[in-house]
């Protein structure tokens, strides 16, 4: 029935999903509410928006150049959009001007809806300008990058958020943000761009940090539960690695074969 080589995949996906769903259920029923530590970068998001409001300068946000149906960075884009929901809410609350730069056209309607909702929830619908608060730049990474850095210079942004799947334009965006003096928080699951963020930005949500932050900042606190599910999955991985390495030292390759099945 199952394709050879995919048995371990099915098993691991199933076990991990179950762990996450069970913890999520327990948390939503308040049976077990895990204590999740806050990443300093998450706190910095709020701080950066507040700082921009004090300075009276805008906040810019990019949810990445990967589309909604990207085969590798779709999760990245989804996490970035969740974080956009949070940043938009904070920006509207503190009264800073928000500029969202969009590259993939598929993300545009979603971002428009998220930001517009954030404005109308605070009763500031008139401040949302169609086509201007959420700006479509270009689906091409370099067309997008040239517009985004031009915007950062001209608007003199005070806080810049780079989330989602960015490719080689990541450093260009981040370094320009640093040049205009913006406080920057970035995150990605693109492992080749993370080093650029670590070097150029004030705070970086490395890989899973960004995906967990999406759950951490969810308006529904029960959603934090899933993060503990992620921890369980990681601890299973640690167990497999340690056990597998010790066994293979003894010449037993059972874990490797299991994973290859």
């Amino acid at each position, binding site marked *: 029935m199952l394709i050879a080589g995919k048995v371990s995949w099915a098993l691991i996906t199933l076990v991990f999903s179950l762990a996450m769903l069970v913890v999520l259920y327990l948390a939503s029923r308040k049976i077990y509410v895990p204590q999740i530590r806050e990443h300093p970068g998450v706190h910095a998001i709020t701080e950066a928006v507040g700082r921009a409001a004090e300075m009276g300068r805008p906040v810019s946000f990019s949810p990445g150049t990967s589309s909604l149906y990207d085969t590798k960075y779709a999760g990245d884009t989804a996490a970035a959009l969740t974080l956009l929901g949070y940043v938009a809410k904070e920006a509207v609350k503190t009264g800073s001007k928000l500029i969202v730069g969009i590259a993939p056209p598929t993300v545009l309607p979603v971002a428009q809806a998220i930001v517009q909702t954030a404005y109308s929830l605070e009763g500031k619908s008139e401040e949302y300008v169609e086509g201007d608060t959420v700006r479509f730049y270009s689906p091409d990474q370099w067309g997008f990058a040239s517009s985004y850095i031009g915007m950062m210079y001209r608007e003199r942004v005070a806080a810049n958020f780079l989330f989602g799947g960015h490719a080689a334009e990541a450093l260009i965006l981040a370094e320009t943000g640093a040049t205009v003096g913006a406080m920057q928080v970035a995150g990605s699951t693109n*492992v080749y761009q993370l080093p650029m963020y670590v070097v150029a930005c004030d705070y970086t949500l490395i890989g899973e940090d960004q995906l967990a932050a999406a759950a951490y900042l969810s308006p529904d606190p029960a959603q934090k539960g899933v993060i503990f599910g992620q921890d369980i999955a990681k601890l299973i991985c640690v167990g497999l690695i340690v056990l597998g390495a010790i066994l293979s030292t003894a010449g037993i390759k059972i874990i490797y074969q299991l994973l290859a099945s």
Partner: protein
Amino acid sequence: MAGVWRKIASVVLLVAPAIILFDFALKNPTLQSVATDLNNWAVVVGAFALGIGAYSLVLRHGRMISKRRPEWPYSIMLLLTMFTFIVTGLVTGSITSPQYNWIYTAIVMPVSSTLYGMNAFFIASASYRAFKAKSWEALVLLVAAIFLMLKNAPIGGVISPVLPQIGGIIWDFAGATGMRALLIGIGIGTLALGLRVIIGQEKTPLGGAE
């Protein structure tokens, strides 16, 4: 009507991933063709989305021109270029026609390669600003970067053949430890986020709860 439509959306969120995930592990030709079609459907819907983007762009720059905002001449230039590309592409019927190729190589190619190459300049300014060894963590970052550069640039091996070897050790270690943990974490994190979206717990990436 709106309620029913939203129900359909939840069903799509549950059924489409089920088909695509089961297709990965099960050998079933029907499942496979449905999964391929689903993928194509998403691409088709995505292609339509570009119209929204173009509309939004025309709206913004049209407003700039009509209200004579400071940057309005640039907006005219942008819209003209855009329509030139669209007309040339659709009239010649292909993006490989000589006319289309000419405008593409004259504008898009040089700007792309320039911006890509600009990374090298930004690496320089970032190196000067950000590699201050103010903490142990920053020191580790700095040392690893320096040894890797000495490994990659031919000059490192000329100064001393030991330098590239140290760089090589650091590179192997980084790939087998930090990178590995990062990749595993990303896999698990994506699964968790995906699950929450699929079962309808996370609505923001769909455009908010409304």
